[in-house]
């Protein structure tokens, strides 16, 4: 589904040019649960921004299904992004003044749906993440775990083909982290949702079927390839 070939990425800062990603080659198939691990500054967030169609400033080729993403403009991106990707962020990134239901409904509203067409879908995904009856709450009155569930509900409301999660448990305690991980695993198993997550937490990474390790912008290990190598 996702095929990255020889991806290189540079950041320009004044006269300096940082080479953030070195010749990344990565393929992800439908239904995988992938963890990308690595130190801070290793380039893993940069990588998933590219995978999630947020960043188009890279060299190399990226085929998403049959779309040559490396040739697309930002405008074509937003459409693809809206239809295909759901994002979950470390610090939830919910709109504080909007209710839970409004936050969850946002992606659908941007596809041009009417508010009353989407009420049922919003309720359904809130049930799915275990937040039945929380529609009219404000995010700021909820716990971190609950807010992350809202964020996950928002990510999956539009039936995306894959989820990008940037340190989804980074701001949560161990117990809540486990609850969120269980939710991800259930989504992956029951709904077949492809999930690519970045994490620091070895416990979280251990629960993923595939772990990709990045150091200084290079893929140094990929459990899938190790697995292949074993055969």
């Amino acid at each position, binding site marked *: 589904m996702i095929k990255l070939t020889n991806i290189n990425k540079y950041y320009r800062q004044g006269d300096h040019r940082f080479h953030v990603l070195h010749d990344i080659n990565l393929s992800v198939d439908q239904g995988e649960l992938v963890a990308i691990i690595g130190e801070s500054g290793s380039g893993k967030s940069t990588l998933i921004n590219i995978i999630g169609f947020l960043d188009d400033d890279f060299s190399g080729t990226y085929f998403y299904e049959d779309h040559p993403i490396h040739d697309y403009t*930002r405008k074509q991106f937003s459409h693809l*992004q809206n239809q295909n990707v759901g994002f979950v962020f470390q610090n939830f990134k919910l709109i504080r003044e909007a209710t839970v239901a409004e936050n969850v409904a946002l992606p659908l509203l941007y596809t041009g749906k009417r508010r009353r067409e989407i009420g049922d879908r919003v309720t359904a995904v809130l049930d799915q993440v275990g937040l039945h009856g929380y529609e009219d709450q404000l995010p700021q009155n909820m716990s971190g775990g609950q807010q992350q569930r809202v964020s996950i509900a928002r990510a999956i409301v539009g039936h995306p083909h894959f989820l990008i999660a940037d340190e989804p448990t980074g701001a949560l305690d161990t117990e809540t982290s486990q609850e969120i991980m269980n939710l991800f695993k259930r989504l992956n198993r029951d709904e077949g949702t492809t999930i690519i997550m970045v994490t620091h937490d070895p416990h979280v990474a251990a629960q993923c079927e595939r772990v990709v390790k990045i150091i200084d912008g290079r893929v140094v290990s990929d459990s899938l390839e190790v697995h292949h190598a074993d055969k």
Partner: protein
Amino acid sequence: MRISELLRTALRSLRANKKRSFLTIIGIMIGIAAVITILGIGDGITQTMYDKFGNNAKQGQQTTEIYYMPDNENSTVSGFNQQDMANIDNQFGGEIRRVRIEHETANINTRADLGDVSKNVTVSLLRAAPTDVKLVAGHRLTANEMATGQAVAMMKSSLARHQYGTAQNALGTTVTVGATTYQIVGVYQDQAEYSMDGGQNKFGASFLLPKDLYYQGDTASSGNTIKLTFDQGSNAGQISKQVAKYLKKNGSAANQGSYQYEDMEKELKQFSSQMSIITKFISFIAAISLFIAGIGVMNMMYISVSERTQEIGIRLAVGATPFNIMMQFLVEAVALTVTGGLLGFLGGAGLAHLIAPLLSSSIGGGIHIHAHITMTAFLMAFGTSAAVGLIFGILPARQAANKNLIDILR
């Protein structure tokens, strides 16, 4: 994203910052309110002038008058006779509904003989018994006296005292005006020559005479003023001008004087164009206030954009296009200014209605100025405020749309 959703989002974020939103729109409110007040009162004054002096356009028909001025002031020649009427009717019958000789009835300057004394006096002519005068001696002219054509008259008290010592003494004396000699049957208290609203007061004259006796024979069928009546919508001024031109050539007394048509409407047009110059000037000043208010809106929108960077990032990340983001902030700016504009419109309309009566009473003279708020004024308030929102909102909105998502999320 649907427009209804855009509006909802915009209104919600404006409500989240009620105080700031309100302060931002005060400038717009004041600017629009000032223009609406001035326009309302200016239009009101113009309207009053038209109602009072215009060609009576209000009553479904228009009337104009053509005067005849003899070259020799003392000449007794009449400018219009029945032949002229018939000629005008033949020439312009299609365009003029009615033409008739207008006899002056109020404060006519003439010479009168009181006994053996000859004086310049003013006389007013009556068709019905006068009720609006205060009697000093004798009795009022009665309907019966008028109907039977008796040569009776009333005299004002100051003249009576001057000529005969007391009002009582004046009763029974005679006054000769033109060819008719009238007997004084009543004396009335003096009144001002002009009425409260600036028109002539016919009871301010020295004598009150029955009209039917004053105009008889030749004088009844001729005169120095004609009144033309037009149907609504015809170009009264233009046709009247043509009639005057025709009369200058073919009028019965064309060689002894001149026929003049005074276009009140034209003067009114001048007046209203002067009013519109004043209005434009004040609008210009208001435009400066709107400009400053617009800069305020721009400032507020820039602050809002930088405060809500996170929100912009979230929206972009869940699938909003940069265009969606730009529209959201633009709609917010326009919603702000249009709200200000509508509040300003209401304030201005209210202020105009408050000021108009004050203005009327300070002018006095029974002139009633009503504030005149037009649909055009409403559309102007709406359009201007929306335009201010668009013009001053576009740059902040574009800045919001061009934010780099990666930088926000990092």
